[in-house]
């Protein structure tokens, strides 16, 4: 039964595609939203009645689905976030290819559900790669612009490289336990456990855009706005965090997992924060911010609080999605996503207000839920060391700064205006804003721990204080920069993600490309030449020799044929047409017999 949940959207996306191609926008919005709503409903039903699913491939392999507490949080968030986004997409995106876009978004939800419900590594890999492939299709959606396709390829390849980790992890698990199931992972020990953890970390880091894989998120911005919104908030990127959170118990068996996750998360949060702050483009700022926020989630997992990471995921999803949508609308009106241009355009008041809520959530401003999860993460980090906590606080400050910068650059109240258009587009953004506001319930004392049946770190006063101070100062700084763009610090290194893409280009892509071109040329020139040089010799001989020019000469097979060809000329040279030469040949043959026989006698 649990299979219904991923299959429904996947199947419907295909089935409805035909109809969607000719349907009106309203019908599109309603039907696409209903699909996601149905997923929510199914999830609720599943959660209530304890569904499970198993699908047999062969006598040794079975695909398993299951639903856990944390899985349910993620699984519910995805369609919930998707509903407004598909409505937005149906209302707002270009008509051409809209049906395909919606189908892909719906399928995206289905694939992500499969990922979240998977209870074994095989199912997980399937979902994991499907999500990647659909994201490729989404990013490449407007394919007439070749750059977008290049970006899609780039994003896909980076994440696929990470997927190798998952393959290795799965193989390690299977070779040890004879099964892919999560439930069997506990049996692992020794080398195979280390391999498993390393593989999973690799896969998750690349999927959730942690260092050094973060830059692919920039490439992913080439998709339509709705695709970016969904990809960043709910479907693709959080998968990495989900997996380490879900498998935290097994992963933590390895001593270095926690510190590694912490280091990865922290460094990404800081670096991405800086990168976001320096971006001249709104969407890129949001992309970098996604990396940074996911970094915070990694910190949570690394510190031993996977459920906290889940909560931050929810909060982040609810805030990030509307920001994308709103910025998308604004950028469209301005004709560019550059702050320079955005700053000169009016924005719709409703949109701006809603964005304010989202920006505050990203900034981690009390009393929004985002603030609570951030504080909790800081506290969790504090369990490790004070310094880690302080660094995490700094990361929080950075998020406040870039959130403020974004907000004041795009939605500064000095440029608000009322516009009658955009009603349908606004509704999803407003929905998100309301949901974001609702996350404030997290501040209710003991609420999360009690509800979620998971331990949460206790807050410390100094951390709260410092955090608040940093958020405020960060916001001020961000706002000031937004108002005074000339003073904003700008660094090409930061804008370009510390040059990681360039490094990857020169260390990885370019060598492979050169290697492959060389090999491709060399495959003819070198490998074939091993057999072909002889034919060259023949060509030469033929040109300079006497008996050249057979009509089939073009057709000498490379290789020994060449040698044979040469030998052939030599042999036919023996046939001189002169009988006395033939007589000599007989004499030679006679001698040969004598020599062989005499040798046989003597030795």
């Amino acid at each position, binding site marked *: 039964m649990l299979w219904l949940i991923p299959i429904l959207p996947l199947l419907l996306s295909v089935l409805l595609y035909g109809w969607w191609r000719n349907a009106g926008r309203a019908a599109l919005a309603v039907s696409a939203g209903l699909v996601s709503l149905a997923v929510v409903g199914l999830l609720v039903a599943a959660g209530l009645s304890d569904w499970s699913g198993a699908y047999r491939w062969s006598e040794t392999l079975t695909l398993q689905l299951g639903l856990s507490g944390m899985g349910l949080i993620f699984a519910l968030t995805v369609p919930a976030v998707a509903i407004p986004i598909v409505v937005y997409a149906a209302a707002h995106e270009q008509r051409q290819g809209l049906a395909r876009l919606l189908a892909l978004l719906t399928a995206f939800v289905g694939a992500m559900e499969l990922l979240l419900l998977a209870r074994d590594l095989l199912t997980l890999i399937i979902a994991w790669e499907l999500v990647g492939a659909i994201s490729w299709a989404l990013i490449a959606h407007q394919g007439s612009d070749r750059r977008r396709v290049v970006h899609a390829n780039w994003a896909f390849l980076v994440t696929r490289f990470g997927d190798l980790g998952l393959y290795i992890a799965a193989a390690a698990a299977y070779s040890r336990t004879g099964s892919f199931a999560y439930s069997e992972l506990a049996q692992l020990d020794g080398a195979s456990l280390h391999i498993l953890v390393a593989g999973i970390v690799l896969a998750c880091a690349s999927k959730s855009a942690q260092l050094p894989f973060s830059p692919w998120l920039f490439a992913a911005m080439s998709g339509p706005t709705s695709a970016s919104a969904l990809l960043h908030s709910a479907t693709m990127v959080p998968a990495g965090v989900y997996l380490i959170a879900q498998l935290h118990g097994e992963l933590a068996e390895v001593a270095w997992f926690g510190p590694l996750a912490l280091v990865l998360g922290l460094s990404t949060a800081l670096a991405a924060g800086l990168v976001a702050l320096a971006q001249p483009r709104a969407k890129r700022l949001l992309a970098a911010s996604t990396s940074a926020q996911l970094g915070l989630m990694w910190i949570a997992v690394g510190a031993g609080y996977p459920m906290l990471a889940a909560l931050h995921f929810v909060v982040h999803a609810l805030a990030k999605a509307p920001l994308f949508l709103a910025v998308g609308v604004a950028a469209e009106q301005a004709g560019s996503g550059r702050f320079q241009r955005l700053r000169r355009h009016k924005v719709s008041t409703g949109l701006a207000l809603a964005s304010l809520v989202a920006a505050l959530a990203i900034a981690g401003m009390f009393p929004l839920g985002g603030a609570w999860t951030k504080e909790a993460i800081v506290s969790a980090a504090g369990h490790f060391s004070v310094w880690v906590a302080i660094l995490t606080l700094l990361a929080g400050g950075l998020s406040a700064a870039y959130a403020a910068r974004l907000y004041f650059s795009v939605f500064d109240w000095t440029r608000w205006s009322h516009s009658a258009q955009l009603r349908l587009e606004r509704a999803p953004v407003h929905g998100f804003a309301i949901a974001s506001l609702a996350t404030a319930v997290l501040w209710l004392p003991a609420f999360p721990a009690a509800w979620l049946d998971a331990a949460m770190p206790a807050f410390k006063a100094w951390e709260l204080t410092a955090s608040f101070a940093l958020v405020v100062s960060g916001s001020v700084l961000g706002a000031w920069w937004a108002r005074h763009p000339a003073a904003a610090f700008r660094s090409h290194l930061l804008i370009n993600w510390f040059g990681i893409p360039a490094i990857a280009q020169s260390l990885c892509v370019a060598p492979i490309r050169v290697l492959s071109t060389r090999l491709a040329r060399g495959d003819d020139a070198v490998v074939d030449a091993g057999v072909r040089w002889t034919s060259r010799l023949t060509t030469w001989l033929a*040109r300079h020799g*006497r*008996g*050249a*020019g*057979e*009509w089939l000469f073009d057709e000498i097979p490379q290789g020994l044929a060449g040698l044979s060809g040469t030998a052939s000329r030599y042999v036919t040279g023996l046939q001189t047409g002169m009988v*006395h030469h033939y007589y*000599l040949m007989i*004499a030679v043959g006679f001698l040969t017999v004598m020599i062989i026989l005499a040798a046989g006698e003597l030795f």
Partner: protein
Amino acid sequence: MNLVDLAFLVNAAIAVYSGWRVFRTDSMVRASFLLLISFLAVGAIMLLLGAVYLGIAIFFMMAVEMMIMALFMLMFMMNPAGLNPMNMVHQEKLSMLAGALAFIALGAVAVFGDFPSRPRPEGMDVVVSLGRELLGDSMLVFESAGVTLLATMIGVVVMSSRRGRYGDANEGSVPPGLEPDGTPADQSEHAGDRAEQDSHQAHHH
């Protein structure tokens, strides 16, 4: 050294010398007579060995054959009487070498080869034993040889007679034409083609 040995030596010397002179004379007619002398000397040695029938047979056969040969050369060949100096040899050094090697090899076989020593019994009737053999154990061989001679005669007549039963023996003795009433696939044409293609190909490359 008895008389037989002396006769052998003399005949041997004649056989070798005249054999050698065959290829050292200017005239084919002379050459054929020298060959005849060589054969006669060998025949004489055979007689010395007691092979009466064979020796005589050689005398007669070779005498006839050489006469035919000489006539033949007079009839057909150029330079019949050695009027012009004749030295038509090729690869002479190599031939010398081949001859010398052959002599050394066969001589070595003669010297080092361990042939069984089973001399012919004294007083056996050589000719009678041959006759018994011919009509007894080896009759098939002998008959086969006869058949061979018959076949040879047919072949020789086919190849050499100038006039056939229906006119010129050789007229029309060609392969069928590539097209009915056309010319046969001419062998020399291919050589021409090849040369042509050679140049074409060389140009091409």
